[in-house]
Every structure is written in C-alpha cells, then in structure tokens.
C-alpha cells in the first residue's frame, strides 16, 4: 500500500513537469536544448545509487534545497515517504518525458493550423486539439512511470533508507525479508504482488496505446 501511495504521488507530481519538458523538447528550439535533454535522461543512465546520493546532497538536511524547504515550509523529505516519492519521481521522469514527447511529435501540426484558422486561439487549440490527440501517450507515460516507481530501489534506499511503514516500499521490503532467516514466505508473497502489479501496468499501457478506449484509432503509440 505504501508502494502504491509513493508511486501514485510520484507520477501525479511528475506529470505536469514531464509534459512541460516533453513540450519544450518536442516543439521548441532553444539554446541548451541538448543539455536539458541530457539532464532529463540522466537518471536513466546513471546508476540509481548515484541519483540517490545526488538527491541526498541536494535535499538532505544540510543540502541547499533541503534546508530551504525546511526553513520556509517546514518540509523534510529525508527518511519520509515523500522523499521516497521524490526519488521515484526522478527515476520515472525520463521514461515519462520520452513517452509524452513521442506522442507530441506524432500530433499532426497541420490540424493545429486548421483549428487556428477556424477561430481557436493558441490555448484553445492546445486543449481541444493537441492534448486530446496525445492522450494515449500521456496515459502510457503514467502507466510506465507508475511501474518504474514501483520498482525503484537504488535511489530510494540511498536517499531515504528503508524504514518499515515510512519509506520501505515493495522492493525494499523484499530485500529486507531476504536478509532475514525464514523470510522466504514473505518474499514469495511480495514478489508475487510486484509481478502482478507490473504485469497489470504493462497490459494497461499496451491497451491504452492501442487507443480504442480514448477514441484514437490505430495503435501507433507504442512506447517501448
């Protein structure tokens, strides 16, 4: 349950940011675009432990961001489930940005032009044309991000440790159970849950990508 909460919070918080980044990368040409692209993808290629360590430095009690958050808002992320959500969010971000970006690039910009000539301003055009047309990509991004968050291990344990009931997500619990003599039954049970969740997420994402649910016709929204 904690895992679900952490992953849920992670993708809900990440979605607007992921969409904004995907939009920038898909639609805008600006100096430093390559750098932004690289930074977004960094958590995908860097060892998760390193990502966790970087988060620790930035958001820790004495980190530049962590201290500001604590002083101004009284928020601490260290050793809290919110920290686990942050770690999961950072790890899920690249996958989500990729999925949304692909679907944005697939949106026919001539349709947006047509909407403009019919009297739609840029925002209305976005809400009525662009966004509905890339919904399958957004849905796929949510499912992928969710699955990635569920499996998040390295960055989480490095950043917020493994505290039962607070930061001990499913993979961390499995690992902890493995360390204990006689924990096999527990491991089997948790592993079964995680396989079921991940399988469900994959099937759901394929199904959404296929599109009939969202009225999108042919399945050209494969994410992987």
């Amino acid at each position, binding site marked *: 349950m904690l895992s679900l909460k952490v992953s849920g919070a992670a993708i809900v918080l990440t979605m607007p940011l992921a969409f904004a980044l995907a939009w920038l990368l898909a639609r805008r040409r600006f100096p430093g675009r390559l750098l932004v692209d690289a930074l977004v993808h960094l958590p995908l290629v860097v060892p998760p432990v390193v990502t966790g360590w970087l988060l620790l430095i930035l958001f820790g009690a004495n980190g530049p961001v962590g201290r500001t958050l604590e002083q101004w808002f009284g928020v601490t992320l260290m050793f809290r489930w919110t920290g686990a959500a942050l770690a999961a969010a950072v790890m899920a971000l690249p996958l989500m940005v990729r999925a949304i970006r692909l679907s944005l690039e697939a949106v026919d910009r001539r349709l947006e*032009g047509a909407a403009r000539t019919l009297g739609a301003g840029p925002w209305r055009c976005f809400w009525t044309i662009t966004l509905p047309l890339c919904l399958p990509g957004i849905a796929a991004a949510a499912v992928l991000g969710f699955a990635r968050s569920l499996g998040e291990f390295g960055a989480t344990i490095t950043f917020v440790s493994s505290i039962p009931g607070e930061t001990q997500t499913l993979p961390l619990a499995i690992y902890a159970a493995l360390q204990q003599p006689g924990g096999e039954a527990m491991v089997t049970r948790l592993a079964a849950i995680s396989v079921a969740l991940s399988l469900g997420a994959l099937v759901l994402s394929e199904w959404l990508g296929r599109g009939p649910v969202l009225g999108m016709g042919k399945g050209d929204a494969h994410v992987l």
Partner: protein
Amino acid sequence: MSFDIDVTCRRGARTVALRCSAGEGLTALFGPSGAGKTSVLDMVSGLLRPDAGRIVVGGQVLFDSAARINLPPERRACGYVFQDNRLFPHRSVQANLLYGWNLAPPARRWLDFDAAVDFLGIGHLLARSPRSLSGGEAQRVAIGRALLSGPKFLLMDEPLSSLDAPRRDEIMAVIERIRDELRLPILYVSHDRAEVDRLAGQIVEMV
C-alpha cells in the same frame, strides 16, 4: 477590391513573391507545383508569416510589415479548405462542423448549421468519424466546417486534387454555388487549367 496581396517570403532556397489585386467572385492562383501557391494561402490565413509586404482582404488589413500589423489566424475570419481536408480525427463529423461555428461570434454566423448540412448534402454523415468518410464526403465536410466558422472570405487549396472525376464534378458544383449564391470572395489554388477556366472569374498566374 476583395484581395490586395503584395508579399515576399523566403521558403528554404527559394523566395515566394506575389503581387496581385482581385475583385469579387472566385480568383484562381494558377501555376505549376512548387510555385508557392499554398504558401500564399498560408500567408493570407496567417499560418505563415511573410518576410515583408501587405495583405488586405475586403478592406481589412490582415498583415502589414511596415505598420507592424500581423493578425493571428483566429482573428482573420478566413475559411480555409485544405488540400488534405484536415478534419479532426478525434471528433465526429458533427463536432468538426461545429468547431468553428461555436468559436465564431454570433454576429458573424451568417450560415446556420442545418442550412449548411442541407447545402452540402451531408446530413447522413453527422455521427460518423472523419476516418470513415470517402474523399468526396470528407471534402464536403471540410468545406462545411470552413463555411460554418463564419468566414468573410474563403481560401481553397486544390480542393479537388484527391478526388476521382465524378466527385470532382460534384464538389465543383458546390464551389460554384458558394461563389454564386453565397457571394463569398474566394482565393482558389489549382494547377489544373480546365478547373480554373470553369470556376474562376480572374486568374493570377504564378511561376
């Protein structure tokens, strides 16, 4: 004068330049593929920004580089019928037709929905998805969508090019009726001499 156009625009290696004035009725922009005819329509509709020049339609200045006027497409009140119809795939035919109608200020809606549907004979298509339409049907819906947005003029970009001969006749008859009954100024792009001769009051040649 209905259309007063004097624009230049660099498109990659070549420059599209056109200067023309046209009166009432249907004016054809005629020339071979690649002459920049579509670019001219895009400039008049506001989808493409000319590098320099001036566009006046029916007395209203749409673009003037010297006076720094550049109305966005949604404020130009143009009905643009594209070569590839560009119907919104995620909306039904009816929703497509109403898209521009809903956005137009009530005072500008000179054609009502039922009249447009009758005029174009598309009543039986309303619930369908644009994907399921034939080329001729889709083009009639696209024309209806443009007319219902309450335009003050029409831009038509080779609206017949994707159709077979019987459909071409059918759509050409529709265009003639728009020209004669609705009395809308039309800027019409084509590379087909026979089509232009049949429809156009004036012909502007582009090379």
